[in-house]
């Protein structure tokens, strides 16, 4: 019973086109909740595109086409990001994304953290402070910044910035965390901290991590998905 | 709940964009509407190419069209070598400090109001021309010289930008092959920058066509197609400024709307020309 895997995301025959160029071809896969699935493969094979399908970031890019079916189990029910009437902002609060380049907004650390709450309409100051603290603790960053919340986020080191972005993504308590090469721009020490952090987050959410570092994939992935030749060629258990 | 706020915002933005665009068409509309009595009285060709003799009932604005083109083209021709020289110096021939200085000077020139050029022209240039070359001093040449200086920052900055936008890799390659500054400029940068420079020329010409004050203050305002550079002339723009005080219902007054329409059309042609050239350039590169 304890090892029973619950399905969280199901892809069924998904194709994706940038204009006329097909980037994903007939992808079918299942991701399980509270696991960390590493997605790897040669560059340009659509790994980031696959992530973008799940939180509809592809809709921000013109001239793209998608077919097939995706079902995500969110908030107790199955929903599909392909549906026309879906509220994108609500979806993205539950399916959060981390990018390769840490992208803190040009404001103070505290304001960066409070920003998603402001977008979601949360006004209670104490609630905001509480959530900020909790998210920063989850991201292993609280001790380092608790006295400098007023300082600009742009002054942090690369690794700290990325942890800030992770904390910021965590503050709305997402169920799924999508990470697009989260350690590519960091030095090995900072990358190590991030890896530890991501593994620790399995407790709270489902993680999909794109990475082209095979050793990283082996270290952190419960499951490994390999994308080659625009198609899924391999989906196997990792050795963590 | 939230979506309605989004939709409202989008509609507001859309309305603004449409309203702004509509203004442009409204300008043309008003001028046509108010100019219609004129078109009903005289024939189309009489207006554009006939003589101006109100006492005879002839309201041809050909003299003004001719004046406009004389002054604008002469100005562009005077401006061209000056701008080429300056842009060559700024983009390649000068050292860093001179480059910065000249650049600052050109930028400063863009801020000089047109009326000040006119003012200086009247008191400084007109007597000079009158004494040096004869004639009344207030003529096509004087206006063109001042106009050339007025539009030169436009041309210079476009030329300089085009020259500097040439792929640095090409310039590097030429340098490695032993080309000196002038050679790099003439054989690598200029050929590739020609498209942008042509756009700059047309834009400056457009500016010259549309200028009012310099022609009004320095060109003499005689209603006669000019036969030489030392003759006075009147431009479409100056005509509009001068005639507006005339009796509202007279045909003479309505002629200013014909001038306005002509200017509007020239503007559209120039804009299209520049856009077409820009597209060609993008396609080629």
């Amino acid at each position, binding site marked *: 019973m304890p090892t029973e895997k619950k399905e969280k995301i199901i892809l069924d025959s998904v194709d994706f086109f940038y204009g006329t160029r097909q980037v994903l071809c007939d992808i079918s896969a299942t991701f399980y909740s509270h696991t960390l699935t590493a997605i790897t493969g040669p560059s340009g094979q659509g790994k980031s595109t696959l992530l973008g399908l799940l939180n509809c970031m592809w809709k*921000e890019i013109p001239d793209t086409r998608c077919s097939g079916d995706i079902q995500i189990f969110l908030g107790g029910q199955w929903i599909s990001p392909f549906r026309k009437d879906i509220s994108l902002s609500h979806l993205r609060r539950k399916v959060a994304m981390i990018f390769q380049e840490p992208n803190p907004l040009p404001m103070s650390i505290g304001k960066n953290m409070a920003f998603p709450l402001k977008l979601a309409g949360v006004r209670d100051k104490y609630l905001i402070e509480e959530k900020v603290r909790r998210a920063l603790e989850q991201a292993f960053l609280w001790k380092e910044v608790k006295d400098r919340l007023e300082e600009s986020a742009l002054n942090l080191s690369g690794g700290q910035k990325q942890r800030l972005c992770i904390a910021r993504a965590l503050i709305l308590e997402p169920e799924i965390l999508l990470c697009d090469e989260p350690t590519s721009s960091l030095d090995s020490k900072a990358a190590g901290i991030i890896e530890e952090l991501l593994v620790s987050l399995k407790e709270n959410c489902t993680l999909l991590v794109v990475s082209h570092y095979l050793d990283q994939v082996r270290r952190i992935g419960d499951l490994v998905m390999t994308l080659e030749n625009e198609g899924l060629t391999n989906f196997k258990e990792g050795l963590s | 709940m939230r979506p309605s706020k989004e939709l409202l915002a989008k509609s507001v933005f859309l309305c603004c964009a449409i309203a702004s665009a509509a203004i442009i068409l409204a300008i043309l509309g008003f001028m046509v509407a108010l100019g219609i009595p004129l078109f009903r009285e005289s024939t189309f060709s009489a207006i554009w190419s006939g003589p101006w003799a109100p006492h005879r009932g002839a309201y041809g604005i050909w003299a003004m069209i001719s004046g406009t083109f004389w002054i604008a083209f002469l100005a562009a021709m005077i401006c061209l070598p000056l701008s080429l020289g300056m842009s060559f110096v700024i983009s390649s021939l000068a050292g860093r400090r001179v480059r910065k200085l000249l650049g600052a000077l050109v*930028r400063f020139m863009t801020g000089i109001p047109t009326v000040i050029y006119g003012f200086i022209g009247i008191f400084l240039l007109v007597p000079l021309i009158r004494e040096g070359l004869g004639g009344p001093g207030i003529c096509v040449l004087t206006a063109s010289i001042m106009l050339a200086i007025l539009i030169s920052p436009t041309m210079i900055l476009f030329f300089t930008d085009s020259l500097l936008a040439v792929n640095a890799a090409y310039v590097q390659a030429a340098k490695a092959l032993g080309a000196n500054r002038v050679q790099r400029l003439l054989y690598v940068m200029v050929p590739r920058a020609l498209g942008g420079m042509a756009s700059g020329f047309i834009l400056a010409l457009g500016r010259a066509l549309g200028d009012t004050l310099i022609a009004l203050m320095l060109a003499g305002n005689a209603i006669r197609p000019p036969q030489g550079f030392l003759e006075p002339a009147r431009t479409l723009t100056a005509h509009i400024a001068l005639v507006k005080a005339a009796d509202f219902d007279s045909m003479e007054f309505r002629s200013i709307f014909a001038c306005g329409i002509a200017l509007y059309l020239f503007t559209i042609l120039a804009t299209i020309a520049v856009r077409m050239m820009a597209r060609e350039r993008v396609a080629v590169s």
Partner: protein
Amino acid sequence: MMRVFMEKMVEYLSWALALLLCLSVSVFLSYLLIKGLPSLGSELVFGKADPLSALLGRERVFDGIFPAIIGTLCLVVLSTLMALPLGICSGVYLSEYATPIMKKVVGGLFDVLAGIPSIVVGLYGFSVAIFLHHHFSDRLGPCLLISAISLGVLVLPYIVRSTQTSLEELPAHIRHTATALGATRLQNIAYVLIPNALSGISSGVILAIGRCAEDTAVILLTGVVATAGVPSSLLSQYEALPFYIFYISSQYTSPAELSNGYGACLVLLGICSVLFMVAHGMQKRLFHWALYRP
């Protein structure tokens, strides 16, 4: 051999022509300074009236440029206030919501508007004034309000373009940051995009202000006069600095008045140079686009 000669010629000619241009401009400016500097002072601005009472509106200034300065100030404020919201909203629409076809069409229309000679815009304002005069009320005619509206139309393209360009040039990662956090499009625009594009937008606004301050052609047709005192209402006629200079150039009756004209030139030059330098300092590329202006 011929080639080397030509290359040398190009080099020398370029320097000579550049020098010629610099020299001409320097001569003009020095001439202006020499003639205008002596007249700078409170008499230029306030004439024979007492400065303090003139400022408080208690005394009318007859032979100073104070009314003209106030007139220009009112024009600038009014026209910018009118063009700003319309321009920024249009720019936001073009950058964030418009389809490529709309961008081309509407963008093309704005290019045309930017290229229209200012006198044609003045003619448009004049036509509107005539229309209102004939169809609504005899009291309506060319006035401060009409001029402000016309100037607003004149500078609208600057504000639209600067808003659109600075938004479009924001790097992709800034756009996606808030979106990935669940921001709606409006939230993204209001909280992230516009604050980040502010320097470019401000640069466009300052350029617009400079353009309003120096324009003569539009106001010639829409209500500026030589003597009207400080504008008493939106529907009244008014004085403006550029027109004062224009008027003096052909209607001066004494050397003192001519000297005042030179002084006014210096004042106007000072105002416009400062505005343009500030605009340039804020955003270089948008500054170049402004050179479309006819």
